[in-house]
């Protein structure tokens, strides 16, 4: 329940929502129209994971069913320039997600400009973070290319930071010739529950809290199937130590930059995303810690027919681009060098027997453990490991 309590909307936000609701009451003359605009959607996914050595999403070495994702959302357009939308989620994933119900997003979307060429406006509330191609719907099985998103870009172990922010987002969409150019800039507070473990590798006694953080994405959606996006974000966190605490009070700044390219030719689709992530910890550790991570993946999808598709992907993560093989890290800390990189070969198959059903299966062969969650792996890890997973999903 703690997660739910932490996810309460801030006071100013509550006030603006109340103001908006009052505004709504004024527009009640259009009663029929706006009630007609109400809609809801939902999904349920249950996964199975089996690894040979290391654990991912639960105790997967002995076969784990500790992975489900359930969500329901609703939206309504009470006025032609106002949309309200919200989504509740429950997600269980081993030790990294406990299945508690949380507010995934809850927002008021105020449309300032809207015509048949462009639109622009402001979203207020808890807003999904625009990041790369898949982040905003990362927990919705039908919108992902595979059961697990490429972990080098879409880490699940520090996923809270990437989910949604409490604040505001400016958006602009414009048709240019046959292409859509879209820009989003979000400002707000990130979710940080349980992040200490992922950042410090142990359950630190203090708390990491979010300061005001930013994310911006420029996306070009070409109608010939080409999509190109550039994302930049600045996440500022503050650490308040407990007592006693091996770590001191200080700041953490995380700056990801992602380039995304996708080409969809109908039967096949090629996707690649490349990122650098700079991390700086000051005050928390005795000496300032700085490193730049690097990651990329190349993914191909082939649609045999509307019901069957195959996937192949190579995904690479280096925690520190100046120490790709982790040898400097191993020498300095005694930790395994292979915990600083991960190279993941994935092959997957997907079956869509019906519009509402999907069955996915995939196999991963991984060299390195850089994106494995520490809480799932209290035991010593292995450098080379394999994983099979399957998921059945239903939507309504």
């Amino acid at each position, binding site marked *: 329940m703690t997660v739910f309590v932490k996810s309460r909307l801030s006071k100013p936000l509550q006030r603006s929502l109340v103001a908006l609701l009052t505004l709504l009451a004024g527009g009640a003359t259009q009663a029929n*129209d706006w009630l007609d605009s109400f*809609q809801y959607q939902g999904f349920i996914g249950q996964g199975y994971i089996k690894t040979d050595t290391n654990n991912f999403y639960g105790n997967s070495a002995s076969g784990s069913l500790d992975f489900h994702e359930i*969500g329901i*959302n609703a939206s309504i357009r009470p006025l032609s320039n106002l949309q309200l939308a919200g989504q509740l989620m429950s997600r269980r994933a081993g030790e990294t997600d406990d299945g508690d119900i949380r507010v995934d997003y809850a927002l008021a979307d105020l449309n300032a400009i809207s015509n048949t060429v462009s*639109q622009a406006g402001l979203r207020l509330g808890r807003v999904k973070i625009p990041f790369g191609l898949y982040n905003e719907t990362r927990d919705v099985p039908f*919108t992902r290319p595979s059961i697990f998103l490429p972990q080098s870009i879409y880490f699940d172990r520090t996923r809270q930071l990437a989910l949604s922010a409490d604040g505001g987002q400016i958006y602009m969409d414009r*048709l240019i010739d046959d292409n*859509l150019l879209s820009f989003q800039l979000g400002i707000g507070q990130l979710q940080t529950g349980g992040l200490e473990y992922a950042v410090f590798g142990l359950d630190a006694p203090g708390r990491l809290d979010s300061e005001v953080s930013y994310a911006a994405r420029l996306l070009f959606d070409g109608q010939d199937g080409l999509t190109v996006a550039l994302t930049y974000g600045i996440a500022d966190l503050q650490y308040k130590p407990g007592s006693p605490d091996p770590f001191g009070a200080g700041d953490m700044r995380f700056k990801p930059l992602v380039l995304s390219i996708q080409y969809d030719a109908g039967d096949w689709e090629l996707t690649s995303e490349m990122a650098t992530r700079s991390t700086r910890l000051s005050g928390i550790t005795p000496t300032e810690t700085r490193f730049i991570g690097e990651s990329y993946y190349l993914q191909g999808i082939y649609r045999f027919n509307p019901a069957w598709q195959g996937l192949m992907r190579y995904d690479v993560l280096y925690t520190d681009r100046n120490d790709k093989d982790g040898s400097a890290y191993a020498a300095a800390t005694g930790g395994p060098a292979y915990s600083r990189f991960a190279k993941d070969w994935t092959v997957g198959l997907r079956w869509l027997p019906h*519009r509402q059903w999907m069955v996915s299966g995939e196999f991963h062969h991984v060299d390195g453990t850089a994106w494995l969650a520490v809480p799932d792996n209290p035991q010593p890890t292995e450098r080379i490991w394999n994983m099979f997973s399957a998921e059945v999903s239903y939507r309504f």
Partner: protein
Amino acid sequence: MQQPSASLARPAGYRAAWLACLLLAALIFSPASSAQEVIVNPDVPIERIDKSTLRAILSMRLRNWDNGEPIRVFVLDDQHPLHQRFTRQILGLYPHRLRSAWDRLVYAGLGQAPTQVGNELEMRTMVATTPGAIGYLEKDMIDDSVREITVE
């Protein structure tokens, strides 16, 4: 008598084959848009629409007509032959791409999905009775209750 009729039959057979080929070619190369048309509610203040705007509307990226009235989009099931033909031939998009565009809006709280109707009759009724509505129909299903618009 046999001889002349056989000599006549031969050219006639060629003619028939040629005609058949021409017909087939006409079927294959005729503008696909002649089979299905974009329709709107009679109150929608446009006569023609360009392809990119139509794509943006069907992708649910545009919310209002130029007069400020909300756009209401109606579609048939993804697997419906008319939906498939409409998305491929008129929009130049694959149905899976349209579906993925809707999913990305809906599950991120950024937009709404179009309203799905069960059949073409329902499509005509809904577009006819919903202000700001846009949809598509086979040419021979169109009557006075809806307005056909030209795609450029």
